[in-house]
């Protein structure tokens, strides 16, 4: 049946092209992409959700500008505790004789005293630090790491991929062997070594170094895209018009490869948050007294059976951030792919048929 499937595909393509022309009348490429993205429900929801999440996380704790101990001035956060404060550990009301359980009360009908946050909504850790403050601080670190890795890897990957795909030959061979070399060493091992030596220099520094090792996949994709795009006739046309290499790469080819870049960068970013988590879990990422989501989970891994909330809250944040980024990436991929069409659902079709038959009868 191979031939017939193929046949159906060809027909579908032809129809889709015809319809694509109709649909894109009078719109620029950017507008089309934007409209398609808006229509992607999961992605739009993720954008809104991620925006709210980042706002909440970054305004929760006090920002101290200047010296840590004697700040020039402080921007107050909305949460009363800082991640280094040590309020008294709460012993009362905890199940199974544990300590520092969450005081959040989200289900009003169970015990009848309504919805309330309490003093320590996410509970407290062993030494009484407020867990909400810790999770907020951890989420800040994780998001910071994510964006730093994303930006560095995107820049490096795009430039290196573009250069090797465009120039080919010797440059390409040299750069791609470098890529091979980096790919063969697992990121987790590189991260461990970096973390072991430079972990105490802070999350931003760690992210910077990790970013220097995670651009390889992107550069391969961009190179592939450039290899096909450079053979397109509009590149020759630009060359005949007298354009130099730099102009051709940045003005003519790169905008056409932007779909691939954006998509793989979003995937890379959600990967970065997991890399940081994994490294911190292994003890090589962010080190105490600073916290990250991964570090929180690894610190309290023994407590899972007795005090599961120490596990849940950082876990929920990791999943929420990574999922949001993945959904946004998915939405962008669909929006940039001109072959991606909204399919008619069976219901739409039935509705349309009913309407049509009604008008015919009328």
């Amino acid at each position, binding site marked *: 049946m191979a031939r*017939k499937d193929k046949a159906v595909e060809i027909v579908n393509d032809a129809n889709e092209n015809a319809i694509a*022309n109709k649909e894109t009348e009078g719109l620029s490429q950017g507008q089309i992409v934007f409209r398609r993205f808006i229509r992607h429900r999961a992605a739009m929801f993720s954008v809104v959700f991620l925006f709210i999440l980042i706002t909440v996380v970054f305004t929760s704790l006090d920002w101290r500008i200047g010296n840590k101990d004697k700040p020039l001035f402080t921007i107050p956060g909305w949460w009363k505790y800082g991640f280094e404060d040590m309020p008294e550990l709460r012993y009362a009301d905890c199940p199974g004789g544990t300590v520092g359980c969450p005081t959040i009360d989200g289900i009003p009908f169970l015990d009848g005293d309504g919805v309330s946050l309490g003093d320590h909504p996410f509970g407290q850790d062993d030494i009484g630090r407020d867990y909400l403050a810790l999770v907020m601080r951890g989420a800040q670190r994780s998001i910071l790491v994510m964006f730093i890795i994303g930006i560095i890897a995107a820049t490096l990957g795009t430039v290196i991929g573009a250069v090797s795909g465009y120039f080919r030959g010797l440059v390409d061979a040299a750069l791609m062997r470098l890529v091979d070399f980096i790919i063969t060493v697992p990121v987790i091992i590189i991260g461990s070594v970096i973390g072991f030596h430079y972990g105490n220099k802070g999350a931003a520094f760690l992210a910077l170094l990790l970013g220097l090792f995670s651009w390889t996949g992107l550069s391969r994709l961009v190179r592939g895209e450039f290899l096909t795009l450079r053979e397109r006739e*509009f590149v020759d046309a630009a060359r005949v018009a007298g354009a130099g290499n730099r102009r051709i790469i940045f003005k003519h080819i790169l905008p056409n490869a932007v779909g691939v870049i954006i998509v793989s960068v979003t995937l890379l970013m959600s990967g970065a948050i997991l890399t940081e988590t994994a490294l911190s879990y292994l003890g090589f990422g962010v080190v105490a007294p600073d916290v990250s989501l991964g570090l929180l989970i690894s610190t309290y891994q023994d407590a899972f059976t007795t005090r599961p909330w120490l596990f849940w809250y950082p876990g929920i944040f990791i999943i929420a951030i990574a999922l949001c980024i993945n959904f946004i990436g998915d939405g962008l991929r669909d929006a940039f792919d001109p072959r991606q069409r909204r399919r008619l659902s069976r219901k739409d079709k039935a509705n349309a048929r009913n309407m049509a038959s009604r008008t015919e009868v009328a």
Partner: protein
Amino acid sequence: MSEPVLQVREFTVEFWVDGVWYPAAIKMNFDVHAGKTLAIVGESGSGKSTTAMGIMNLLASNARTSGSVKVNGKEMLGASKAALRKARGKEVAYIFQEPMTALNPVYTIGFQIVETLRTHFDMGPNQAKERAIELISMVEIPDPEGSFNKYPHQLSGGQRQRAMIAQSLACDPGLLVADEPTTALDVTIQAEILDLMRGLRTKLNSAILLITHDMGVVADMADEILVMKDGHTVEHGSADQIFNRPQHPYSKQLLAAVPKLGSSAKRTLPAEARKQMPVMKMENVTIAYPKRGRVPEFVAVRDFNLEIFPGEIVGLVGESGSGKTTVGRAAIGLLPIKSGKLEIMGNDISKATWKELFPIRRHTGIVFQDPASSLNPRLPIGESIGEPILLAGLAKGDELNHKVEDLLEQVELPRSYRNRFPHELSGGQRQRVGIARALALTPDLLIADEPTSALDVSVQARFLELLLELQDKLKFACLFISHDLAVVDILSHRIAVMQNGLLVEEGDRDDILKRAKHEYTRKLIAAVPVPDPEEQRKRREARLASK
């Protein structure tokens, strides 16, 4: 008259786009009888392919159909999937435009034919193989036994199309739907495929539904013709009727737009032009694609000699793979030449580096074959057109905008199109943008690389007119590359014919078209389909007799 193989009544196809039903084919009525050919003719977007696909329910999921389609008396619209599957291949077979994409590249052609046979008949593998080889020899592929085990990429374009036909014929279908079966092929191969299809029609007594935009092919094949425009049937009649006494203005317009070989007025170049310094001069030029890895060096053009004088249009004709595009690209320095001497405006650029080529760029322009690919999809067309001017440092800002608008006006596009993107224009409009860009620096030499092959006939006719007007006004020299002799005939002062990387013949238009010396040129001229059934029949007989 006997029962028709295909009976179509009040057949309508519509597509659901953005909440509205767009009709693609409206109230079609036609019959196809055994041993007869019905041709559906129309320009792109007229709904001819949609009709063909709709018959067997091969449409996308956002389509709906109404009316009645009967194949051998059985209703096909609304038939169950199983019934349709049975009918496809067995009663109705399709031949597609692009044999490379319609054949599965990872299976041998033998395997694919056997697959079709065994899906529809209770047949053992050996028996199926025998039948497959029989089919392969029926479509005249050389060495049927050996070809059985060949993959699609090992066959030439014409052979692939034959394999495709062999597969379609596997179950002796009563109806053969051929959707632009020869559009992707060269004229000489096209003639062979058409001969083959005609032979099979008489041998198997199949009915053929031929979808094409090429009036020459129609004249060669059709008994009956149906002209479509925007989904409507414009005219329906016998071939003789449509060609000799078309009623509807659109049919007349369509026929008038087809370029006819040797019918246009002779274009003469003033004799003194030949005495000036040639705009482009190639002397014993050899162009090779260097070896890459295990792929050996490929010499695309060998010992090529050509001169183009100011104000002259030279047509370069040849089949695909003859190296004509390579010559065009080398002429403006897009490809390096291996040996020989290439001069542009008196400057030797045989060994020029990229930097040395920049001054040459101001004197040359190129119009590419595919207007969809030659414009950057992310740039507004105004920017594309203005780029050469901007990069040459001639104008900036408002002045540049002015120049771009003037250029748009020259190619008869509204000034407001400056801000549009390529995908918002039709194929013909895009190609005009291509010309505007090529003419932005008022070049002395214009290379036109098959600029009309992606266009409909009527659009092509208008495009050629425009090119001639511009050439009269601006007096640039032009190398016009085409596989279509009839098009070259309209434009050229001189014609050069290429085959397998060699210049076969070169001379004045009349020398080539009427007094061709080389056998290949004569073959090429004989293979060009003429939109006249009578004339076509005579030529066919002459061709068969000479075999």
